[in-house]
């Protein structure tokens, strides 16, 4: 619509366009992010186009669809898609969940096994490789129907790494291995630490809260907040006999392309392979055996990193793999600037001894998830930040912690890695104003 007169509403973004959102000043050792990044609808719209449509996004794990015809459906980058293991090829296929006829969803169950996907609206039928197989009354198409052209539409790019399936809506994106950069080694540590073969445990944490998605990025890899925000969790650890001496210490690493990790030692136990009182005396032998296995396979140094060192990892832009008191895989998407939808799973070694699986599940739930002793307080913190932004008066967030030194796990270098990539992908603030 053009009226020849610019409506007043566009003035604010024009003003915002005069300044960048992420400002790094190496001389003063300051790193600041303008709070409009978390509140502006224009920024959010640009993120959908420039980040979520132009990145590799996590779809799911191959272990979720082990058999031919197994499928799961879920939103990826805010779009309904489904992932199915092809009956003919055994390949993992990722399709846009829409009938090529007139649009209805063709996969309407959350998960299951099926050889065919039939759109219930007019009964067009597709197989698990996406091929169109049946159209009722097809003689009615005088010009004929090209069944090859009318197959389900694949998401432009699909690749996996160590069982993690990613998709991108951008046909021109670099291959997944290149994209993952330094994150590959850390995924290897997680998977090899679990004995190389892992599965997603049944049961999903689906929740939402009212804060910008980038606050969850920061929070998921933030060591600095642990002691203050999660005081009650540490108190719980003490109550079960955990020694808090040594605390949380380690380092923050920029893994390239916006990915980052903090790796650190901690007071809590790890099912592979650091014993703690929560696991019970009878688990000591088994956990010692798991650790010895890791040493035999990978050598003492790498085994130590797998067994005793925690990893909170961001795969840019919206996948978190946290290998802490258990392993969680978490992805999220913002339907609006101040809302984030989260889906989280637990990753575990296949064929894990029932007693160890039980301890892993216990360990996960005491800290993690919407009913855990920690995650709800994170939600409160992030909603509190979002509400604070609305208060105004302060325009910038400060993310400078640890600049000018070799960054430790309680610093903010890992967040700066995210923000640099984010700013690069979003372009200049002036571009942003043009994007409207």
């Amino acid at each position, binding site marked *: 619509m053009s009226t020849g007169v610019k409506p007043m509403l566009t003035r604010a973004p024009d003003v915002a366009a005069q300044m960048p959102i992420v400002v790094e000043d190496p001389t003063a050792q300051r790193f600041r992010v303008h709070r409009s990044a978390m509140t502006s609808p224009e920024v959010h719209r640009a993120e959908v186009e420039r980040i979520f449509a132009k990145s590799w996004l996590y779809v799911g794990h191959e272990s979720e669809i082990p058999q031919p015809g197994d499928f799961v459906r879920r939103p990826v980058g805010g779009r309904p898609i489904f992932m199915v293991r092809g009956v003919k090829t055994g390949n993992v296929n990722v399709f846009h969940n829409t009938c090529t006829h007139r649009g209805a969803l063709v996969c309407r169950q959350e998960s299951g096994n099926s050889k065919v996907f039939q759109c219930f609206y007019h009964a067009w039928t597709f197989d698990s490789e996406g091929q169109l197989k049946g159209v009722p009354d097809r003689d009615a198409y005088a010009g004929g129907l090209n069944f090859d052209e009318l197959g389900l539409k694949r998401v432009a790019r699909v690749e996996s790494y160590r069982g993690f399936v990613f998709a991108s809506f951008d046909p021109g994106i670099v291959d997944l291995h290149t994209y993952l950069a330094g994150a590959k080694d850390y995924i290897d540590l997680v998977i090899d630490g679990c004995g190389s073969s892992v599965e997603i*445990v049944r049961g999903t944490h689906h929740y*939402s809260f009212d804060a910008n998605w980038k606050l969850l990025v920061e929070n998921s890899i933030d060591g600095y907040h642990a002691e203050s925000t999660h005081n009650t969790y540490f*108190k719980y650890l003490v109550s079960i006999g955990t020694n808090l001496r040594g605390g949380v210490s380690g380092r923050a690493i920029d893994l390239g392309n916006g990915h980052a990790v903090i790796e650190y030692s901690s007071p809590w136990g790890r099912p592979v392979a650091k014993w703690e009182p929560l696991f019970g005396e009878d688990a000591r032998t088994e956990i010692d055996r798991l650790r010895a296995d890791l040493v035999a396979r990978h050598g003492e140094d790498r085994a130590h990193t797998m067994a005793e060192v925690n990893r909170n990892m961001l795969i840019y832009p919206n996948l978190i793999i946290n290998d802490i008191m258990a392993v969680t895989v978490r992805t999220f998407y913002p339907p609006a600037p101040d809302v984030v939808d989260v889906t989280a799973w637990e990753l575990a070694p296949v064929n894990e001894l029932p007693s160890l699986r039980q301890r892993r599940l216990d360990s996960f*739930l*005491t800290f993690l998830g919407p009913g855990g002793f920690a995650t709800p307080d994170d*939600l409160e913190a992030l909603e509190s930040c979002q509400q604070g932004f609305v208060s105004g008066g302060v325009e910038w967030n400060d993310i400078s912690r640890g600049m000018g030194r070799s960054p430790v796990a309680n610093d903010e270098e890992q967040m700066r890695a995210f923000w640099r990539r984010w700013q690069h992908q979003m372009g200049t603030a002036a571009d942003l104003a043009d994007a409207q």
Partner: protein
Amino acid sequence: MTAMASSQQAISRQQVEEFLYTEAALLDAWQLDDWLLLFDEDAKYEVPCNDAPDGDPARDLMLIDDNHARLASRVDRLNSRRAHREYPHSRTNHQVFNVRVQDVSTEELSVTTSFTVWRFRAGRTSCYVGRYRYRLRRRDGGFRIAAKRAELDMTDLRSVADVAIIL
């Protein structure tokens, strides 16, 4: 069903309802220490995931899987001023209905009910809907909880954000 068993069950339901209403009132009053006394030492409190209401805590990911010790820690946490999501506390209204008493033995009985739990905090309204499954033990003329399981009917937690309160 014999007439005697039937009358035993009819009496039990009224007693059970009385007990469950008392439990709900303790939760709504945030008298969590007293609420915890309703549980036996080997008791469990479980909330399965929305997409796996039949979840088995030995194998599957749950939302909550507390033994008595962890439940006591949950109560401690919620009583402190550092469970930030619940300080200040929500106002809650635990509603229990469609009570059915099953498998009445001399020792234990299984009870299923429907529930709605309303939660109000800082201008936000949340409503949890689902089914309680209890195992109750007869004790001192009343009951003790051996297991409480809250299976949610909502397909996800998007409308309620979390389960930081006790259902």
